[in-house]
């Protein structure tokens, strides 16, 4: 029955003769990568957690599973997957991976591309392909999993994935201070989960055991107040900068210190690859979807 759901999805996606098609998740990041062409046929990936063995610290689920549903299953065993979308009730696992935007805890837990261990995806010709494997360490063959993350569905549509889990921290605590130097804060903390700044205030997320969090906090200069959570994150656009460039930001923003992601209230222009790198990008898309039937309109540069 498990495999049949994936095959059914592959049939829905269809082959070249079935025309353009787009895969819909929770639509929470629908505009990333450019608008999909209007009136394109829509499909949805199957949903549900299909295999979870806490002692393996990996989980298998269908790409259409809402992130909050996955999180509830993992929380019961004290684990988590750091997909961390802004709207976990709506966002789907496959959608977060296809968009490839990491959450606010990237500083500690790494980019979202590192959580995908195995992917079953449907290609432009309607075949169901497996990449990677259901183990935490694996160099068997070329790394198609990392290519799929952030590909906006243009290499294939994710159907089922195996993800790396983490232990859920005992305590997660946000703190805020006014006027602190966020870059100095970073140099004083060991594995903070997040450091955010809007140019005036600094927020830090410390996770782990309470005594360690208290000790870390005591090293920090400034007046730190416990707060409910991070500030609201501007959702107009994201800039991607080398982390040191965050020292010279202007305008309204919320920046992830040590990471280099800058959240802006308005749209942000992307810098597409140039020259030979752009040629390689196009060749990838030609190799997997020569007729551009998957998510037409997205990732135009390729």
């Amino acid at each position, binding site marked *: 029955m498990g495999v049949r759901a994936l095959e059914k999805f592959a049939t829905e996606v269809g082959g070249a003769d079935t025309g353009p098609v787009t895969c819909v998740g929770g639509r929470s990041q629908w505009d990333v990568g450019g608008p999909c062409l209007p009136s394109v046929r829509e499909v949805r990936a199957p949903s549900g957690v299909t295999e979870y063995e*806490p*002692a*393996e610290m990996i989980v298998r689920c269908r790409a259409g599973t809402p992130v909050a549903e996955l999180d509830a299953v993992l929380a019961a065993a*004290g684990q988590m997957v750091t997909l961390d979308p802004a709207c976990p009730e709506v966002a789907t696992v496959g959608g977060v991976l296809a968009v*490839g*935007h*990491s959450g606010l805890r990237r500083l500690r837990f*790494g*980019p979202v591309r*590192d959580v995908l261990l195995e992917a079953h995806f449907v290609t432009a010709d309607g*075949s*169901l*392909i*497996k*990449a990677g*494997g*259901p*183990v*935490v*360490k*694996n*160099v*068997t*063959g*070329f*790394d*198609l999993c*990392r*290519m799929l993350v*952030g*590909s906006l569905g243009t*290499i294939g549509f994710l159907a089922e994935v195996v993800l790396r889990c*983490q*232990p859920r921290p005992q305590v997660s605590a946000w703190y805020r201070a006014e006027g602190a130097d966020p870059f100095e804060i970073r140099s004083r903390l*060991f594995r903070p989960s997040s450091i955010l700044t809007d140019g005036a205030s600094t927020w830090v997320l410390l996770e782990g055991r309470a005594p*360690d969090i208290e*000790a870390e906090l005591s090293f920090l200069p400034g007046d730190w107040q416990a707060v409910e959570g991070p500030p609201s994150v501007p959702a107009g656009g*994201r800039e*991607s*900068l*080398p*982390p*040191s460039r965050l020292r010279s930001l202007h305008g309204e923003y919320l920046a*992830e210190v040590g*990471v*280099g*992601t800058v959240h802006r209230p308005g749209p942000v222009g992307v810098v*597409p*690859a140039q*020259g*030979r*790198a*752009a040629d*390689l*990008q196009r060749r990838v898309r030609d*190799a*997997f979807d020569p007729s551009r039937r998957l998510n037409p309109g997205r*990732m135009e*540069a*390729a």
Partner: protein
Amino acid sequence: MTSTLVADLRRALSPGRVLAEPLELALFARDASVMEGHAAVVCFPTTTEEVQAAVRIARSHGRAIVPRGSGTGLAGGAVPVSDDASPPPVVVVTTKMNAIVDVDEVDRVAWVQPGVLNLDLSRAVAHLGLHFAPDPSSQQSCSIGGNVANNSGGPHCLLHGVTSAHVLALEVVLPDGEVVVLGGLDPDPDGYDLRGAFVGSEGTMGIATRVAVRLTPLPPAIRTMLVDFETVAAAGATVSGIIAAGIVPAAIEMMDSAITCAVEDYVHAGFPRDAAAVLLVEVDGLADGVEEAARLITDIAVAQGARTVRVAAGAEERALLWKGRKSAFGAVARIAPDYYLHDAVVPRTKLVEVLAAIADIAERYDLLIMNVFHAGDGNLHPLIVFDRRVAGTLERVRLAGGEIITACVAAGGMLSGEHGIGLEKRDYMGMVFSDADLDAQARLRDVFDPTHACNPMKVLPGGSRCGDLQHVPEGAWV
């Protein structure tokens, strides 16, 4: 024909950095695997421009290119081979490109040339409180370029992740000689993650000439424990128990009794010679978390019947315990002249079952198989120790190796956790991937190298794309 190839290379590089004498070539016919190939010429560029020149000259003479770092690979990835219809390839060695170009301690990034040795990089940034986290057991001699090619691991990758998680950007000479930068120092470069595709591509997509690596802070607190057991099952249950308890140690290494004795004879670190299995467990981080994790791990081990839990008293004892683990392969050289080191990865909860299957295979083939491996991530390294001069031994080693891989795959595992596929396991790829899966991987390779000029015949079995017809060369055994 070879003489004009050599002359062209000598003009472009320098005569002293282009080797073509039979004795010199013989040194580069193998890597640390047991397979052998044949190089037409071996060259040692020192700059990106020289790598470009070498690649272009090789191509203009119709030669394939085989990139090579320190030659410590165990899967034959650097063995120079070409298909029956083609002349021998040009080997491009990156060991003379060994400069640490730039270290940015604020952003914790270093640009390095590919020939920089793994441990040299960590030593060079230690005064900044930083290190390069992937730590293969061969870290004294393996290069960053080789780590990139194989997406190498190491004991501490349990916590920190393998090489791909530590590579931000790459300058690459493509198989047609052009230079491109993949990835970037910013978190989300636009487009597909070609950086991710290149890492682990085993030299089939070009030659990395500069690598931007992430540097990781050294932890404020470390606890290293040696735990010994009367049964392998108890050690395996302890590994599962630690993971299930929500602890991710920096490393969990397992050694069985045979390798523990061999190591003890070699380094005299006080490893218990009468244990059925030992675990080397390390936790790091902030003081309280480390303390708590160490206490929990001890409780779990004792509940599973651990005999003793020895905690390293200081840096010296910790170094000694790690020396024992990392010199395991040196230790076996005292037992028999040859060894064959396998690499496979299985679900962590299947470790005990697979170890039992391996013990059964050893008995049936009358071979000595030792186990020393990264238990925390299920990465097995069965080590077959033998003497190839004894008639028929090689054939038994070969057959037993095949059965070990079959057992790992049957348990839900994969062919390689960190050594790569190379020549060694390419013909096993069909055990874990369908023809359509392999075709998708071949399409990715062809984006970079449509004519298969760069490290041909590696990773993917012949026939992954229409028109491929290749055989693993005579003398190669998998």
